[in-house]
């Protein structure tokens, strides 16, 4: 068992949830999401994010619009769709269930 690997697996599992959480506040574009994820130490390499965003978009949880940028190419601004909001709510519940479960396990052990 590799510690780093296990940690990475844990992060990977909740990465989608994190992206949806991030977008629930305001629409933002990929680089902003990356910046936040990086500060939160959720991702190591940036490339990870793009396949996820595309998949969430294709599943109908995210939508995007193009916006011109002052420097560089036009940017994709992602936002949650109605489906996405519902999905996020479910994930919220799943997350609190998880946290409860973990807490319970911890308390029992003590």
């Amino acid at each position, binding site marked *: 068992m590799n510690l780093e690997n296990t940690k990475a697996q844990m992060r990977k599992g909740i990465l989608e949830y994190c992206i949806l959480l991030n977008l629930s506040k305001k629409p933002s574009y990929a680089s902003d999401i990356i910046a936040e994820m990086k500060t939160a130490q959720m991702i190591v390499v940036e490339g*990870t994010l793009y396949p996820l965003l595309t998949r969430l978009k294709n599943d109908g949880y995210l939508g995007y619009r193009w916006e011109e940028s002052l420097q560089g190419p036009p940017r994709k601004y992602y936002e949650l769709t109605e489906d996405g909001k519902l999905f996020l709510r479910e994930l919220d519940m799943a997350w609190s269930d998880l946290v409860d479960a973990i807490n319970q396990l911890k308390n029992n052990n003590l």
Partner: protein
Amino acid sequence: MKKTFTINISGIVFHIDDDAYERLNYYILQINRHFGNDADAKEIVQDIESRISELFQERVKDGSEVITIEQVEEIIKIMGMPEAFADSKDEAEEIITKTTHSRTKKLYRDPDDRILGGVCSGLAAYFNIDPIIVRLIFVALFFGGGSSLIIYLILWIIAPKAANTAQRLEMKGEEVNINNISKTIKEEIQDVKENYQNFRANKSYIRSRERLDDAGGVVISVLRAILKIIVVFFGIILVSIGIIALIALFTSLFVSSEFIGITPFSNELPHYLGLFVSDGTLTWFWIGLTLTLGIPLIMLAYLGTKLIFRFESNNPAIGFSSLGLWIFGVILLIFASVHGFSDFKSVSTSTKQEPVVTKSDTLYLKLGADEFTDYLDSNFDLDGLRIASVNGKQFLLNEPRLEIEKSETNEFSVVVKSKARGRDLDIAQNNARNINYKFEQKDSLLTFQPWFMLPDKSVWHKQEIDIVLKVPENRTIYLSDEMVKIIHDIKNTSNMWDGDMVGKYWKMTPEGLELTQRKAAPVETSKKLKK
């Protein structure tokens, strides 16, 4: 000092060092491979590219700086290698795409190590052997039949040149050993085994639905392995057929007329065609024929090599241009045929009448010596039309036809009617006049040549010679035995067949030709005979 390129990433222009460019290009290629080829993948790669573009922009402030390899490495580190992108849901699929991609090795021409087009070194890279070996094989094959020349030219045309580093890497591929084909097959068999083992291991635990899926998986991988073997096998067959047929076609057109052992008419058809079709038409005909037969064969060999090496041609023009050439060939053939047929549009006859003056009461008809018997092509007989080859030259010969009619005058005479066709009346007339036919008279002996000959360099135009011998009343003729060759449906009072008429004396009476025993035979005898 370094060479730089100007590149465009998501619409932004950058200057980039040569080595940095190749590194970046390979990185993007790796990403491309990782995600495969569908629409999703394109979108992801586009997004990643625009992020790379953004990261570069942060590093290149005033736009005139050149991106270095260190910067590229830094960005690759930020973006991460595709293997690190692993998206939990797609992990399983990813492994599959990865294994299929790792085996990809494509046939390219190697521009760095070439003598002509880099075909040999490309092949050498493909099979992971020394180029000198491939070159030696090619040279040996060239001197032993020349087949390698065709293979070389085909590969030169269809195999793309390895233009950049990524393609060069693809050319050399990952660890694929010399026996690429058998290795692929072995791996397929391994896959099949594993699949089957998984299937066996899980069998008792899973629901029937899943079992069905697994069984499907086994069947599919078995089928895939078989299919790959069939495809390669098929490719080899196609290439062989294409190349052998091409060689056969070219030798038959330009060397002798044997087409894969089939000899239509005779083994000198190409020479003979010149006797039937005028030179201009013939040239178009040959070009048209070469194109209509050759191009499908080349395409066959092309398809075969594609199947064997599984490379993608980077040139869609090949398909279009060969289709275009093929259609052009068909049009040429049609044009040549129409042009050829129009050579037969008009018909004209030329008649020469010569009196035969003799004191004798009887005219002896005989056939001249047949000087062509030994030179005739025994395979060729087109309704009496024959070909004689004398000293390497070919002549068209045909038999004249002799008829006998009653003369309106008191003299014998011979009418030679020559008939021929041509593009227009003048040409037809000319063709008719040019026919070479002679007969000789010596006292009461009339000698006919057994053949009429077309003049040298002239072309068949359905030339015919009809000879009419006009016999005055009460004069007699004798048909010698060999005359059976040229006499044609001669009317006689005893309705005798041509074959029976020879070797006999015939007298012209008001009713027509009448058989007589001897030239002095009384009329009664012949009448009795008739009864």
